[in-house]
């Protein structure tokens, strides 16, 4: 029997065995939005780094709108599916290379390293196209007739009155409504444009510094209009290599996906998020050659900063302009960025060089403290990095080394993933960032927001020893050679995670996650000549049970932690939640209801817990104290073009507090109620 016939036989047998699983899941009631939320929840579950959900959502939503043709795709395209590991991406490409195009979706089960969970996640974002790139003739009127136009408006409000709006001379200059207007245009993968306007609660509509909405962002992206090039005008984000030089997308770090540790170098892409700091503004150009890609970008934009005459004390990234002091920091400094990346792709390797020149119109001079001694100072910085990626049989290696000329700082990150058998994946990552390496737009694997002052080694493994079971674990050991905020001496830390996933039945799945983290902190808040550190440790446990019954999804979560409080009696945190989601396929509405109770007496026992929200919003509130919370999210599709969302939620504290929050955000009493509304119109 020929190889091709053997191949078809195997596919046929697998189809018989698993036809129900994939078919049922493609008919699953989970929408693409729910998929993306679930994936993002996994990414953010074990990190306290703030990750831009808007950017994450738009990337994956774009893949859903223009599914990746897995029969004719590239590594760069598959990288947009952030839940796939490097090994999985390589295995998919290798499978197509060796066996030819996928005949149907069931064949995905034959790809090494892909299990049913991975395949289900991929399904909304992939398609089986022809094995060759099809060029269709495009006419100008197609841009109008066949394009997707989407307009959304969102508004939020806290029902209870906050202190910032009280009194004859309120602290906040505007009203208590949050408003956001968003427009997007899509024509295949060729023309994309976006416009977003946002006003935070407390910001005024009109004053000296604000004209209409407080924040505006817009971009237009032309892909393969002019030969094989991509042009972006407006606001964009940039990510190259492992993020040591530039990574404004900011998606890197430890997560529930223990294998996903390498940064996704997505190049230059459009920006439509409401984060008012992490983007560039100007022009970006990507030229695709046969084996090489050249990217150039230039940016100039105003930034919020706390300044004193000609000195910048700190750059602000909150985006809030509610009070007089916040308004004074708005658009105070101009930042200009020039950068380039050249990437050469061989058969089994990639080499890239990235350079970046970043300059401000005023010098940055933070208030002198010992811990910020190595922070970026001056008007400009120039950084260069070399990145690589290679595949050697079952071993993938990757890394980047960057050098900051202004301070002589060096950063290097190197890692590898290895899959000795189909049921085991191993990964290791080493990082070394000197304290003098402090690059503003860099974001890479590590404990700190900016890769600086850190060295460590990370080891992770994923095993599928039995059917229905998956085990994942990692160990991360790191050191900080210099001081940090809140730690007045060189320190160390360790982080361990163990997760077991069990697909009990086709419609019942659960996981148990254990995490232990220890690091050093100052023993007292008062600064001392000879600082004393103590080892702070925290043991966390999370159990989640998900049950699907027809159009209903039930999710039960138990989350707990225990940690000593500065060496004293151990405190604990506990959270129980029950969520019911009803998403009927034959009705135009959906309901998500969640009830939760939490008990975390001390702030060090706080718990982060994901909560379903309206479109474009990803909610992971933090809970400390004692109390309960209820939330209800309703979605109603008026027709094929018009959809509405409404979220109502309330938190009630039962720990005798008479005030929630502080400063302008303080609310009298023990209840906080919020309402959110969004409307989306497909024009």
């Amino acid at each position, binding site marked *: 029997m020929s190889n091709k016939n053997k191949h078809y036989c195997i596919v046929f047998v697998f189809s018989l065995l698993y036809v129900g699983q994939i078919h049922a899941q493609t008919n699953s009631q989970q929408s693409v939005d729910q998929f993306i939320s679930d994936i993002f929840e996994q990414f953010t579950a074990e990190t306290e780094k703030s990750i831009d959900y808007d950017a994450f959502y738009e990337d994956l939503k774009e893949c859903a709108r223009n599914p990746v043709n897995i029969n004719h795709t590239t590594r760069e395209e598959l990288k947009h599916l952030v839940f796939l590991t490097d090994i999985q991406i390589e295995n998919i490409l290798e499978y197509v290379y060796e066996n030819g195009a996928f005949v149907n979706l069931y064949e995905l089960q034959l790809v090494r390293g892909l299990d049913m969970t991975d395949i289900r996640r991929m399904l909304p974002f992939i398609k089986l196209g022809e094995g060759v790139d099809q060029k269709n003739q495009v006419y100008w009127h197609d841009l109008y007739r066949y394009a997707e136009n989407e307009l959304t408006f969102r508004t939020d409000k806290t029902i209870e009155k906050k202190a910032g709006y009280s009194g004859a001379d309120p602290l906040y200059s505007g009203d208590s409504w949050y408003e956001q207007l968003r427009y997007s245009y899509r024509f295949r993968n060729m023309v994309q444009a976006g416009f977003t306007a946002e006003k935070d609660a407390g910001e005024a509509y009109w004053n000296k510094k604000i004209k209409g909405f407080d924040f505006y962002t817009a971009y237009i992206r032309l892909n393969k209009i002019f030969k094989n090039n991509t042009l972006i005008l407006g606001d964009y984000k940039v990510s190259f290599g492992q993020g040591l030089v530039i990574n404004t997308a900011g998606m890197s770090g430890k997560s529930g996906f223990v294998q996903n540790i390498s940064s996704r170098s997505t190049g230059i892409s459009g920006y439509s998020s409401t984060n008012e700091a992490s983007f560039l503004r100007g022009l970006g150009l990507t030229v695709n050659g046969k084996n090489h890609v050249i990217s150039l970008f230039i940016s100039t934009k105003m930034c919020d900063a706390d300044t004193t005459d000609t000195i910048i004390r700190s750059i602000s990234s909150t985006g809030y302009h509610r009070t007089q002091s916040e308004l004074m920091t708005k658009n105070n400094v101009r930042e200009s960025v020039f950068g380039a990346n050249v990437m050469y792709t061989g058969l089994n390797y990639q080499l890239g060089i990235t350079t970046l020149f970043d300059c401000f119109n005023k010098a940055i001079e933070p208030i002198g403290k010992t811990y910020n001694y190595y922070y970026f100072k001056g008007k400009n910085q120039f950084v260069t990095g070399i990145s690589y990626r290679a595949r050697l049989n079952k071993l993938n290696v990757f890394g980047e080394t960057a050098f900051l000329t202004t301070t002589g700082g060096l950063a290097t990150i190197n890692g590898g993933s290895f899959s000795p058998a189909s049921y085991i994946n191993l990964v290791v990552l080493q990082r070394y960032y000197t304290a003098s390496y402090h690059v503003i737009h860099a974001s890479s694997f590590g404990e700190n927001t900016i890769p600086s002052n850190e060295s460590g080694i990370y080891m992770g493994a994923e095993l599928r020893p039995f059917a229905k079971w998956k085990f994942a674990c990692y160990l991360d050991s790191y050191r900080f050679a210099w001081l940090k905020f809140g730690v007045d001496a060189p320190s160390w830390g360790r982080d361990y995670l163990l997760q077991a996933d069990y697909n009990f039945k086709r419609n*019942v799945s659960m996981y148990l996650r254990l995490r232990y983290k220890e690091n050093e902190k100052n023993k007292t808040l008062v600064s001392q000549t000879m600082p004393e550190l103590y080892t702070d440790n925290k043991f966390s446990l999370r159990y989640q049970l998900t049950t699907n019954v*027809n159009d209903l999804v039930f999710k039960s979560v138990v989350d707990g932690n225990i940690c000593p409080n500065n060496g004293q009696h151990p405190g604990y945190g506990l959270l*129980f939640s029950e969520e*019911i989601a009803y998403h009927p396929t034959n009705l135009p509405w959906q309901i998500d209801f969640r009830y939760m109770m939490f008990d975390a007496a001390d702030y060090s026992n706080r718990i982060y817990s994901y909560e379903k929200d309206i479109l474009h919003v990803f909610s992971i509130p933090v809970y400390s104290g004692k109390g309960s919370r209820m939330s209800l999210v309703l979605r109603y599709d008026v027709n094929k073009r018009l959809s509405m969302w409404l979220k109502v939620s309330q938190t009630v504290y*039962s720990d005798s507090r008479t005030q929630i929050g502080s400063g302008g955000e303080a609310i009298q009493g023990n209840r906080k109620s919020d309402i959110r509304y969004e409307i989306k119109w497909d024009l």
Partner: protein
Amino acid sequence: MLRLFSCLLFIMSLDCSSQIRNILPDGMSVAGVSVADEQYNTSFSNPATIGYSKRLALQFQYQNHYIIHELSTRSFSFVVPNKYLNTGLSFSYFGFSKYNELMIGLGTSRNFNNKFSIGLQANYLFIYSLATQSYHRKFIPQMGLSLHLSPSILLGFQTFNPSQFALKTDQTSIRIPSIFSIGLSCRLDEHFVWKMQLDKEMSTGYKLATGFAYSLSGWLQLQAGAYTNDYLVPCLGIAYQNNAMTIGLNTEIHPLLGLCPQLSVSYLFGKNHVK
């Protein structure tokens, strides 16, 4: 007189903000593990259990704390099954002439092909207090969910007073407990059921309870369990059951305060009313 004094002492020993003791009567299961229970209607423990009734059901329960008559709870419930929605009416009375609590609950629940059941109950609470010499009233919502993870494993969840309402009077504010319960029931074989439950009242501690029921024969069932609050309290029970009637006798043995016996009688009318 001594008993009256003991009662007053017991009530006054509660929190100074006039915290009410655990307001919900225990169900028929030993150690109060009733939130994941499809055998007995325990609407105050979990309104979703009403949905499992296939016959007209009447249930009476007498629960006594520490052999003090004034600290007894009497509860009564009536369930009417229906093809679309089961409805239940429940009463619970605790106390004596100087202080008493009466709660009336109207609950409704639907069982979805024995895969899961959702229940809602509207409770109306009346409290008579010696201090104010009048009745105070409050509406309290309660909701429950019961989910079959498999034919032999049942997960139950309920919340009583989720919005943490309080009863405000001219003189004082009476805090009504806000209770969250989650429980699991496993039928290990046709004679043996094991249950576990965790209760949390918002402002106080946790109560972890576990119990099992073993059917010696078709009509006799033995139950044993324990729960932990401030103390570990063992519980024992025995039940007689036939096609229509179940009579159960449970008792808790508090290491400090003594026995808490409980008598339950349940009667099912006619044949299955719900097809």
